[in-house]
């Protein structure tokens, strides 16, 4: 464990960013390259490619995106890593990345691709706040210090920027932030003698993450998954039920309509054409 704690995880993550950038294109990677190296497309995650939940946290959409995220990682990562240890840092990065990706899959539409490590970076910001809350004399004691206050401003400013720029996924940011905060507060930081509720909160947090992951992999109420399931089954009655449910989900109503069914077929046909293009080498 001690030896594992000497591995420079932050540096390895930064190297991962740069390596993936060079494998795609560090300046302006094409959609096809990002797709092949694992961008997060919710429909593909539920269609048997769950590794995209993590691989997307190492991909970036251009040199500016890469520069911002690498700068943020290298500014906050080493101090956090020295505080909590390398093994915990590695786990935190992956769990926060997973949380951000799950949020995107559960809340966003199934066909919007997302790349970037910012969900995990927000998870690190959340982890810093959670750690400070745990270490200070009182839950709000950390607000007396300049460092945590700056982190809070950083979070607020970045979330505000994300609200105005359509190409930034605030869903991933918020998902990563909450996951990193919760995970660090409940599992990574030191508990004290008065935490009677800690075991109950730990179980609830783990259960929430697990069931949301289940919903990400099997989104039983999302039209693309229902359509894929309908195509895969040989039971005609089940297929009819699934297509009806898919049309209801697509039309966002409790009754399937012909317009929703046509829209669904059109969207799925378009998705398949797009995927065929992206998969061309």
């Amino acid at each position, binding site marked *: 464990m001690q030896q594992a704690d000497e591995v420079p995880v932050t540096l390895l993550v930064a190297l991962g960013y740069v390596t993936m950038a060079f494998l795609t294109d560090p300046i302006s990677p094409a959609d096809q390259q990002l797709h092949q190296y694992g961008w997060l497309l919710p429909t593909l995650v539920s269609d048997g490619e769950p590794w995209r939940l993590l691989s997307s946290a190492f991909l970036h959409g251009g040199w500016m995106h890469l520069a911002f995220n690498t700068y943020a990682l290298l500014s906050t990562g080493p101090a956090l890593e020295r505080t909590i240890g390398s093994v915990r840092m590695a786990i935190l990065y992956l769990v926060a990345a997973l949380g951000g990706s799950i949020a995107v899959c559960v809340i966003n539409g199934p066909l919007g691709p997302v790349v970037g490590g910012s969900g995990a970076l927000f998870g690190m910001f959340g982890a810093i706040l959670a750690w400070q809350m745990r270490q200070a*004399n*009182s*839950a*709000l*004691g950390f607000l007396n210090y300049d460092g945590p206050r700056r982190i809070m401003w950083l979070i607020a400013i970045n979330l505000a920027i994300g609200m105005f720029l359509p190409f930034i996924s605030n869903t991933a940011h918020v998902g990563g932030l909450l996951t990193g905060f919760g995970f660090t507060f409940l599992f990574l930081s030191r508990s*004290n*003698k*008065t935490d*009677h*509720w800690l075991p*109950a*909160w730990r179980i*609830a*947090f783990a*259960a*929430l993450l*697990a*069931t*949301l992951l*289940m*919903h990400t992999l*099997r989104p*039983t*109420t999302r039209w693309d998954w*229902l359509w894929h*399931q309908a195509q895969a089954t040989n039971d005609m009655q089940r297929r009819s*039920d*699934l297509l*009806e*449910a898919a049309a*209801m*989900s697509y039309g*966002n*109503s*409790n009754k*399937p309509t012909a317009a929703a069914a046509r829209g669904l077929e059109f969207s799925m046909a378009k998705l398949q054409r797009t995927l065929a293009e992206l998969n061309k080498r």
Partner: protein
Amino acid sequence: MAETSNDDGGEPVPQATTGVAIPLRARLPALWPLAAIWAIALLPVLLWLVSQQAPQTAVAIANTARQIAMQTLLVVVVAAVVGLMVYPPLPAWLRRFKDRLRTSWSADRGPITRALSELQHFETAQKHFEVAKLAWIRSDYPLVGKHVGRSVELDATMPHAQHLLGLFSLRIGALPTALAAFAAAERLDQGHAFGDAQLHLARAQHLNGQLEASLQTYADYERNHGGSHRSHYWHGEALLAAGQGEAAALAFQAAAADPKMRLTSEENWFRARARVRCWRLPQRLPQGDSK
């Protein structure tokens, strides 16, 4: 409850027993966020189970839940905005909630942890009281119950421990214990905590159905310590329960009076509620002043 003799050889002083069961009502503030998380966590499982049999039903449940959530959010936002403008208890409640949260979240953990560690080696009534007091500030009722009870068990002659036991018992609805504890605090130190023990004794008497004793205690309190928005409000409630409508209206009017200075959030909460009482009892107000 058990009784022992006071060190001064005075009247017997009640002792509490440890291991108080906290009713669900008092534990609810700590439980509802957990319940909300479990509800969200179980929804995907429920949808998956339903979709195995009837995928349309699962989609209908999800759509309906989404619509209800959006409509509820809209109604809550509109009601909150309107309530903040026209219903005085709502902003007063928000201010009190914010203050309580700030107090609870700013309470220093150091002394409580230190006191708990010390108690493992050497137990004293004062140390148990310190833990209970800090836990009370943090609304940690299981911890309060455990330590304030033990503190009174070890030394039943500490008025501050009896007072805290009374407050805790009143909060969890253990009225006989609260009555005995406030009475003991008042007996051990007359006018304890600037009359707060006496005021709460009156409240406990009212809630326990001892209306005459309660009205007498309120009158004593107001004579000895002057009234506050809270005491007038509670006094008004007791008078109303005793069927003295006009006197109650006067008490509510006194509770709703313009304070001329910024009130604490607790006092402000009672003033806001008194203002609503004054609206509801206009026919009983001699001057019809319902600010």
